[in-house]
């Protein structure tokens, strides 16, 4: 019975026992379930603390079923592009004239 009392005491005194030790170093990241001791698991289980986080805990292993495939909503056009006018003949002729003028100016000067 003395041993039982000792173990119960140890279970209750866990926070106080955490010190600069093997236990505390390994439990530096105590929230990691992979590093839980039996005391951690026991406290979480018996106190019901794990029950409080149940939806989060079961989120990953619960099957996910998408019941209805919802089509993606088409975005509404926020602006319209105005029609671009076709290039006209005079634009082509004026471009050629400009090119000839530049060529003549360049030939007239020696760099």
């Amino acid at each position, binding site marked *: *019975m003395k*041993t*039982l009392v000792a*173990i*119960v005491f*140890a*279970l209750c005194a*866990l926070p106080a*026992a955490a010190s*600069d*030790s*093997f*236990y505390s*170093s*390994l*439990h*530096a*990241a105590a929230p*990691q379930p*992979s*590093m*839980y*001791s*039996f*005391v951690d*698991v*026991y406290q979480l*289980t*018996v*106190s*019901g603390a*794990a*029950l*409080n986080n*149940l*939806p989060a*805990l*079961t989120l990953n*292993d*619960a*099957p*996910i*079923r*998408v*019941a*209805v495939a*919802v089509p993606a909503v088409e975005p509404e056009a926020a602006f319209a592009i105005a029609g671009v006018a076709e290039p006209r003949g005079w634009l082509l002729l004026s471009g050629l004239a400009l090119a000839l003028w530049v060529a003549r100016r360049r030939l007239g000067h020696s760099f």
Partner: protein
Amino acid sequence: MFGAWKYAGLALLAAVPVGCQRAEANRGAQVAAKVNGAEILVRQVNTAGGATGAQALEKIIDRELLAQKALAAGLDRDPAVAQAIDHARRQVLAQAWIERAAGAAAKPSAEEIRAFYHENEALFARRRIYRLQELVVSSPAGMLEVLRAEAGRASSLEQVAAWLRARSAEFREVAVTQPAEQLPLRYLPQLARMKAGDMAVLPSPLGASVVQLVHAQEAPLTEQQAAPLIEQFLEGRKRLETAAAEVRRLREVASIEYMGEFRTGK
């Protein structure tokens, strides 16, 4: 005539526990205080928690005063507040349903308790109190095998420490005495097999731990001693399993549609 007296007596006896229950219920329904006319019931005080009932009541009064002011200012119509109220309400409802589902879990049988006791010898039948010397090494995960090889060659922990010092590795030395139940469960099987003087290199959140067993004191628990603890643990575990199964069942029969960015990968 005797029959009539007998029935009257039985009715009186039956009324006694009902009367007690009513008295208990009435006590809970009694008013503990009135705040600007709003009643605070004894039941509220009892469920609020706190060092004493008086302290709990004072806290409720403070909260009630603030809540009255918030309502008078129309804060309950503020979208953010309304959303928070709805969130809290749903949280309470979800928790209540989980608790109800978990309550339906069966109690662990004597066979289950016995099986758990025998399956976890390191915790019970062969429980030990471990005195360990440890080098807590801050190292990348890749160094674990190198450290294991070095520890395998070394004859003492001091040799490993010297090897680490020579490589300017960051580490610290600690000594600890812990019973089996306070050591990480994943390391317990390995530690349980170790003899005094044996070394082991274990991965830790910081990198690695080189552990040497200095001494292990036998401190077994008999099945009779461990049974109450195991029973509580298994009962809690069953509650968790039942509640988790309920969440899984609900998800299976529910229509859940993920929208927008949450649709990706579902």
